[in-house]
């Protein structure tokens, strides 16, 4: 009896979220998938089965071998930017979280310092990106400074509208998404474990590798999921910081939408979703988040 009762309560508790999730996420996703297989013309979708959205997307992928076709090149670039952003935000985010969790003793200071990390979010995304131009541009502060110091003679062109600036903007934006979950995992680590390791003669590095990293893994994976899913689908930051010259999976979808080619856009969205799911499920293979929480 009690078991039945418990499971009923559990269903009731999960119910509202499940409804919202199905109505506003699963259902639209089903529609997108259906539409992705439709045909289209200049101004409307034609509800007839045609995999044109997909076949057009992979056009020339076999014929152009060994050169990569557009879609593969685009994904190679997107995955590369995503990997760089992930690696850098993880390193920086982990370090900040470690500092907050183990070096800052008072709870008040922990909260104050975490809030400081949100400062970049106090202005709009677009303004933040526009602000990079006077800093990194050809006549920007960084180039002027380096020239005045005599370190360079001609302005560095790669500072802006390059992969460098894209990754820089991503790191600036998303490190916070790494800090929070990792910090959250770290403060749950029992201090006695660290003391025990110290007593047993472990060096700081050994403690880090054998105690802290394994126990902070759920936070690392959650942070990684945030960063990877956002970067894989981004087209605004890549567009502005890359000077619209760097392709991304999100950008292709946007261009297709703007040309009113909804089925083609949907097909690209389904492909992007598939690839992102593969990456995320590979990550969750490493750590069973549900078990660790």
């Amino acid at each position, binding site marked *: 009896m009690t078991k039945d009762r418990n499971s009923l309560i559990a269903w009731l508790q999960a119910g509202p979220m499940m409804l919202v999730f199905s109505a506003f996420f699963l259902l639209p996703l089903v529609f997108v998938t259906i539409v992705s297989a439709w045909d289209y013309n*200049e*101004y*409307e979708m034609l509800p007839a089965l045609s995999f044109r959205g997909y076949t*057009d997307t992979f*056009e020339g992928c076999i014929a152009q071998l060994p050169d990569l076709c*557009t879609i593969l*090149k*685009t994904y190679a*670039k997107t995955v590369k930017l995503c990997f760089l952003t992930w690696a850098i935000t993880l390193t920086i985010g982990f370090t900040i979280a470690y500092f907050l969790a183990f070096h800052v003793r008072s709870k008040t200071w922990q909260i104050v310092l975490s809030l400081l990390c949100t400062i970049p979010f106090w202005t709009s995304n677009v303004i933040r990106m*526009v602000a990079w*131009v*006077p800093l990194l*541009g*050809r*006549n*920007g502060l960084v180039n002027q400074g380096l020239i005045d110091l005599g370190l360079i003679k001609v302005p560095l*062109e790669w500072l*802006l*509208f390059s992969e460098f600036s894209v990754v820089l903007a991503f790191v600036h934006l998303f490190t916070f998404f790494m800090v929070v979950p990792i910090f959250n995992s770290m403060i749950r680590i029992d201090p006695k474990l660290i003391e025990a390791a110290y007593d047993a003669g472990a060096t700081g590095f050994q403690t880090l590798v054998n105690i802290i990293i394994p126990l902070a893994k759920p936070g690392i994976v959650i942070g990684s999921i945030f960063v990877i899913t956002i970067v894989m689908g981004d087209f605004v930051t890549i*567009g*502005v910081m*890359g*000077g*619209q*010259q*760097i*392709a991304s999976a999100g*950008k*292709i979808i946007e*261009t*297709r*939408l*703007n*040309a*009113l*080619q909804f089925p083609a856009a949907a097909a690209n969205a389904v492909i992007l979703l598939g690839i992102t799911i593969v990456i995320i499920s590979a990550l969750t293979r490493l750590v069973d988040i549900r078990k660790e929480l």
Partner: protein
Amino acid sequence: MTDSVKLDAKVSRRSLLKGAAGIAGLAAGSGAITGFPYVHSAEPKVLRYLGTGVNEGDLIGQQCFKDTGIKIEYISATTDDVTKRVVTQPNSFDVLDTEYFSLKKLVPSGNILGLEAKKIKEFNNITPVFTKGQLPNGKKIGDQGTAPWKVLYLEGANSKNFSKTATDYVTLIPTVYNADTLGIRPDLIKRPITSWAELLNPEFKGKASILNIPSIGIMDAAMVIEATGQHKYADKGNMTKEEIDLTMKIMTEAKKAGQFRAFWKDFNESVNLMASGETVIQSMWSPAVTKVRSMGIPCTFQPLKEGYRSWASGFCISKATTGPKLEWAYEFVNWFLSGWAGGYLNRQGYYSAVLSTAKANMTADEWGYWMEGKAAVGDIKAPDGSLLEKAGAVRDGGSYEDRMGSVACWNAVMDENDYMVRKWNEFIAA
């Protein structure tokens, strides 16, 4: 029956109380057609105006309200989003401000009303640029691309087909248009620029830009490639697949060689690129050049020997707009062409569709500077009163006849649009 009688009585009392002769007159006029307009006529006249922002402005909205009592609610979106909205949500707007090239997508969707030409007071005074493809002085202008006169008329009120000859049903009433060219920084280039070919000149490696809106960007690319003598297009606005391939191949090579500093998509991006000196030569729009100049930075909207790429926009009305709202929409379009708005747009460097009424709303000096290519006698001011040019200045490109007369092509939607968009993605990815 009784209900409607009561309603009529009540409402006509209210409109009597209001005493607004204009409103009552309109109500009486439209009453003959629809039967129950009194209910609405006493309400405030509100029109939902969907557009890209070129024609919008608080000043226009305020003046319109003052003159006609119609309140305009602006819904602003990018060119692409406006088109998307018309196709997917025709009930979400009354008046649509869009460009002629979009009509190839909008008209077949069946969401646009065929406007009755005889209800547009100034229709016969609209510049022959739109109706005949020629200047008021009779000179023919370039017809490549989606030129307005190719898509101006419908075969009938509910037709989805463009008519080659003049009919009583108009797709889009023109309001504003301009001739676009390359913007340059004369202080950084320090030599005359006379051809579109200069955009790919290695001299400007890493300092050039083109706009990343495929349907417009490809036209600029075609102007450049034709200017370099690598290909002569039969119609730049309607390329064959081979022509698209060739165009994108040349542009891709330039991109790989580092010719472009960035591409831009948004008005402000283009201003930033130019003002910061990141680029010295790029596709540009007239008000963006004005903006850079108003920051005290030299920038020229450079006339080029191959001519201009032109665009034109105006008003459509949604098919979902009926009854008194439809009458207000006609009233609004008529007001727009009656001169005040035309003068306002001309003073920003655009051109108005009815020149005679705009002229009556500008000073002789303003008309001379903006339209006749004459040196300004006094200082030239923007509509908001800020200084644009000092006395003695002459407009880039000269007079209306010189600029519009040199139009080579119009913004376009090609038959091979789908293929072109894919190739454009490939270009961006290269």
